[in-house]
């Protein structure tokens, strides 16, 4: 495997939608039917059945664009990159619907008439870095919510400018931490390449700092002062969704609001301490907007996802930006210590206002022998060890952290990691499912995060070997995604492993330049086998380029056959999907 892999500029698609009676399109689109193509001897798989193609046109670059009842195909055998020789455009990211009636060339672009509208499709040549910049700009302009970066909902389907000011995600903390991690890598790369004072470097720093501040704020905003971490927070003028546990701060106390969850748990009206101050540096994120502490509604019942991803961010900060902002570094270190102390003090759990463990932040050994915990144990044990390794690495201190680590090692925590593959198989066999059918795709990110840091920080050779072995047990389901967000940390953690960089590069070369969510169903694609599993789950037989599959959060199965996870073009996702992998790859010298 030759590194770095050189990324070349690639075509990026841009669709502009018009109504059926639009004046912008050439008249020929409505009056002259373009003849069906002759694909008789075409040497490559085509997305539509050959006999389904009804119209075609040739653009100036020699590409043949064709329409069928399930979308538009661009075929250009002279494209240098094999992957670009056949491209497919479909509802809803590229077309208003898939029923193509006519097609008409316009230079290197085309106009497409479908049952519900007219679309102008352009292909723009972009470098991988240009894509990163475009995606970042969109995220900062639309997705950012007081520094938190996960997703933003739209008032009008597909209209980016109609984004709503409010709206939260269950995983604001985790997703923002991932975004921040990407920006930390960006800062490190630019600093090395251009110098610390270069405007691009300073811009990267500004973005990274804001995101880190937003994440750290969640560790203080509840005012509990016990190292707890909120999932997210709302301000008083934001609607409170009926989704989870929310606490309204008022006069140094926080009261549990009425939601289905709080009613079910019987804790509506429960009050807890909220008197611990929020560091001013962090509080400015809402105070500068005119909110006070009493305007804050925080979300609890935080899961291990948040803690794990936030630890990645904090650890990266200390590794790569420690000196860039000493004040923030102090806060990062203090936060990390607070969290680990909380977890240890509460016997390896994140404790909610009730004094009980949150639903999904359970790292205690008793959980690991329960029916649910037995499968989770392989990942959760690694997460717990990772927090300890990370905090020791960040602080340079051992003491309590090392003692706790030794204790957990004596309980066999490290040895649980390599059991993941077989335990998960057993669970699936018991449920008469295939391994793939029962994957929680968010776990791919969590496992990658945990083992990446464990492998980068562990000094004991035997433990390192165990962690690497454990990391490899996840590759069966992770490697097939060809997602550098997972692959690059693996490579950084396990040097010498062979990866198919050409396949991984597709992620950068064929990602869209917008994170507007999009449903894309593969049903009807003639070149994509549907893979059927034991319990009936369906996948595509191979992972399609990112610009031909649905757009949703990164922690979804990219091989979904019928799109089930994206609610369609009603929200915009964060760019971390792309930017973390890109800047991490640059940082480690995997790509150039």
């Amino acid at each position, binding site marked *: 495997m030759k590194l770095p892999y050189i990324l070349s500029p690639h075509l990026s698609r841009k669709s502009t939608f018009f109504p059926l009676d639009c004046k912008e399109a050439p008249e020929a689109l409505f009056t002259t039917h373009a003849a069906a193509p002759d694909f008789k001897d075409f040497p490559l798989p085509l997305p539509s059945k050959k006999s389904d193609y009804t119209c075609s046109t040739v653009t100036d670059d020699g590409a043949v664009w064709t329409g069928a009842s399930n979308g538009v195909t661009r075929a250009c055998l002279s494209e240098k990159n094999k992957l670009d020789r056949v491209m497919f455009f479909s509802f809803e990211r590229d077309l208003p619907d898939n029923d193509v009636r006519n097609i008409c060339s316009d230079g290197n672009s085309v106009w497409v008439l479908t049952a519900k509208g007219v679309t102008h499709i352009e292909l723009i040549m972009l470098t991988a870095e240009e894509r990163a910049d475009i995606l970042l700009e969109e995220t900062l302009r639309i997705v950012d919510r007081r520094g938190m970066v996960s997703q933003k909902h739209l008032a009008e389907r597909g209209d980016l400018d109609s984004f709503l000011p409010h709206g939260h995600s269950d995983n604001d903390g985790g997703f923002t931490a991932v975004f921040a991690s990407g920006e930390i890598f960006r800062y490190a790369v630019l600093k090395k390449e251009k110098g610390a004072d270069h405007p691009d470097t300073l811009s990267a720093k500004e973005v990274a700092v804001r995101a880190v501040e937003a994440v750290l704020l969640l560790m203080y905003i509840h005012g509990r002062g016990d190292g707890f971490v909120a999932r997210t927070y709302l301000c008083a003028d934001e609607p409170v969704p009926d989704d989870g546990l929310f606490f309204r701060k008022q006069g140094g106390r926080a009261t549990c609001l009425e939601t289905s969850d709080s009613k079910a748990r019987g804790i509506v009206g429960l009050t807890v301490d909220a008197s611990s101050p929020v560091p001013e540096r962090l509080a400015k994120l809402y105070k500068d907007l005119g909110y006070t502490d009493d305007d804050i509604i925080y979300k609890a019942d935080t899961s291990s996802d948040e803690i794990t991803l936030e630890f990645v961010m904090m650890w990266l900060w200390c590794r790569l930006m420690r000196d860039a902002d000493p004040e923030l570094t102090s806060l990062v270190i203090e936060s990390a210590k607070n969290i680990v102390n909380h977890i240890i003090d509460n016997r390896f759990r994140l404790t909610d206002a009730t004094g009980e463990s949150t639903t999904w932040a359970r790292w205690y050994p008793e959980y690991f022998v329960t029916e649910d915990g037995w499968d989770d144990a392989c990942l959760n044990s690694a997460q717990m060890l990772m927090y300890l390794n990370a905090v020791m690495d960040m602080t340079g201190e051992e003491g309590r952290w090392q003692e706790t680590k030794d204790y957990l090692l004596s309980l066999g925590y490290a040895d649980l990691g390599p059991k993941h593959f*077989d335990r998960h198989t057993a669970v699936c066999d*018991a449920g008469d499912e295939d391994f793939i059918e029962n994957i929680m795709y968010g776990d791919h990110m969590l496992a990658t995060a945990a083992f990446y840091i464990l492998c980068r920080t562990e000094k004991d050779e035997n433990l390192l070997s165990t962690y690497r072995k454990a990391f490899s047990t996840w590759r069966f389901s992770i490697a097939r995604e060809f997602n550098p967000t997972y692959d690059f940390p693996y490579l950084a953690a396990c040097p010498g492993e062979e990866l198919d960089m050409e396949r991984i590069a597709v992620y950068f070369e064929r990602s869209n330049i917008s994170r507007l969510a999009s449903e894309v169903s593969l049903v009807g694609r003639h070149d994509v086998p549907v893979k059927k599993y034991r319990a009936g789950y369906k996948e595509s*037989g*191979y992972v399609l380029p990112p610009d031909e599959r649905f757009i949703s959060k990164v922690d979804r199965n990219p091989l979904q056959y019928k799109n089930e996870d994206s609610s369609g073009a009603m929200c915009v996702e964060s760019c971390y999907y792309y930017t973390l992998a890109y800047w991490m790859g640059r940082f480690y010298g995997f790509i150039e």
Partner: protein
Amino acid sequence: MKRNIHLIGNAHLDPIWLWRWQEGCGEVLQTFRSAVDRLNEYDDFIFTCSSAAYYKWVEDTDPALFAQIKELVKAGRWVPVNGWWIQPDCNMPSGESFARQALYSQLYYYEKFGRICKTGYNVDSFGHSRMLPQLIRKSGMKYYVMMRPDLTENPSVPSPLFWWHSPDGSNVLTYRIPNGYARDGVKSIDEAVEFMEDTALKCGSDVMLFYGVGNHGGGPTKGDIEHLISLKEKDGDTGIKFSSPDEYFETLVRSGIDAPVWEDDLQHHASGCYSATSLVKGLNRKAEAWLQSAEKWNTVVSKLFDRPARTAEFADAWRKVCFNQFHDILCGCSIMEAYDDVRDSEGYAMTVAAEAENNAFLTIAGRIDTWLDGVSDTVTCRERHHFHNEKYPRPVVVFNHNSFDAEVPVRTYHPSSKVVNSKNEEVLFQNVRSSRSNDSHKDTVFIAKVPALGYSLYWLYWCTDDSADEPTIDSDVFASDGGEITIGNGKLTVKFSKSNGAVSSIKSADGREFSGADNFCLPTVYNNEKPDTWAHGIFKFDEKLGDMNLKSIELVESGKLRSVVRTKHTYGNSIITQDFILSAGMDYIRVKAKAIWQEPLTILKIPFPVKGTDCISTYEVPAGFIKRPCNGEEEPALKWADISLDDNGRYGVTVLTDSKYSYSCPENELRLTAIRNSIFADHYSNRPPADFNYCDEGVQRFEYAVCPHTGDVDVCRAVRLGELFLNRPVAVPCGYQKGSLPPGMSFITVDVPDVLVTAVKFCEDGSGDAVIRARETSGKAVRAMIKCDMLEAAFYSDYYPLEIKTFRVDKDGYVTETDFLEDIPANA
């Protein structure tokens, strides 16, 4: 937590072993009847039984009994296991054979019982390839029970429970029976219970105890069942319950089970089984290959020319082949008379293949445009004779069964003065001595280039038998006969010693020497007195009796296409003739061997010594390969084995065979075990005086090839050469006609060399959907495109290392990826 001993009532049934199949069939009937009786007598008793072939026998011979069994299966009292036709040898069948074992068996179980088997179960099979976990999973099963090798034979294998992984990522929870599959009688059962109590305690999980009279059937007796019932009622740390393997495994996975991981194959138990009785080995290899290729061609002509799909005939033929893969049959350790039945049923299977293939070839050939203006004007008998047409060249269509392009010598049974391709370009040919002594004495061999699963048209010009016609085009083939005989072709130069008939030198064009000692390819005889037919307890055949003595060596052919050196060696009353053939453009030497073997209790090996260090041997296994240390142990393998080592850079030699399954590699000498002349069914070598019959006595014909390479073994190349060595393109003479087909055509395209298509067939459900099966061969993850215009299908797919994929293609070319069962249970 209290652990349980799961009592698995079973009857080990060998349909052939020390008896012929007819007796085996009777044994099955009696056993099944007995089991039904016991089930009716004892409410808790559960009976476990494998092998769809046995159920089919019972269904056909005693429908009333079968009806009772169906009810018992429905009630969960009778548990079918192992969704394969019988309990096959698990080292020698091809990957495609395992797919067929599952296909015909699981669909049978599904049709008859409304369920498929969950547990793979080969308790007597003598070794288990590392690909088994994948083959089991893709057969629709989740768990596995095996027994051999046992704890003493391979103590490294975790026992009794472990997760077994294969390279594609498949894993199955596997149980190695620690104390036999056929406990019967109070004393034996008591011992087993005590042992299993101890085992359960040590491993901290439930265990299984297998009881019931076995081998020649029988099953649990009343006495055994009643004794076990009495044990059940006793208190103890370990519970006892009547159970089945399915229930046992499901108890484990539901309760959460951690078990050690095993990532290797499971060897060795009976190392002699891979070389005993060459007849059955050769028949199996040939039948597997022929059925595969014939079914592909039948699919082609059925799709394109509306010829009937022979799916049912192929299924019937495959079931014969699957049956003969039973471990005591394919392993060559049954009685002599049983192999008459094997020969007949394999013959049936191959006749099905031959007829279907010939029908397909003639159907296609008859539609190729071969018309020559004026050809119908010929009037004399001589002019009209197929190969004696003096005015016009004769069209010959060459068919390639493989999913990759092939360029190899092919043979027609007539001499020629010139051979041209469809573009009228001359191709290399040579008239060579035929096998007949009638009519002309010469055949034509010419180099044909044929696309993947396709054909190419060639034109052959007639000549008289005694003419010395040669191609006018240049060739780099050369030969000389001096102090040594030398043959070469620009890629290889091969020298033969006139003192012992060995290959004294093989050099590649860059000067690399591959022959590492003076016995390269020199037939060598080893002692086989001590091993029984199975070679129980013996893992190396290394007691050398001597090299065979050179009787003659001569350069028998030297032309532009090829050179042939013939050696004859003798030993005692035996003789072996080897024709070493080096053809133009080939980077391997092909060796046709014929032995007349008359040495009792001997082994004939062909050695391939190479010089260097850091040897590693690699062997083809069903649908994959495995690397092994060069420690001299006898290793099972399929069509090829390789030795690679270091001597100023890595290099090595791959050896292909058409019919052999056993190799050894002591340090830097790879050896092909070609003949092993044991007594039939000689069990633990108890040999009262008798005039014995021997497994490999008489005429033995086999072929092998020596393929030198630089660098470490190129598995992808080895696999392709192995396939090509077995599935050679076939030259079919055809007539003159105005046809619609072009002079060359391919019916399938795969865009990467690592992926091999092993089956193109119709789906068993009669829907008209087609099935394509392909596998990754190099051991690396890859994306591959398969394009098959006749099915209107073109698609990509991602493969895990050594993964086998089965695609079901509907009539519109839409593709579903499924498993060996073709999505039939799911669709139902």
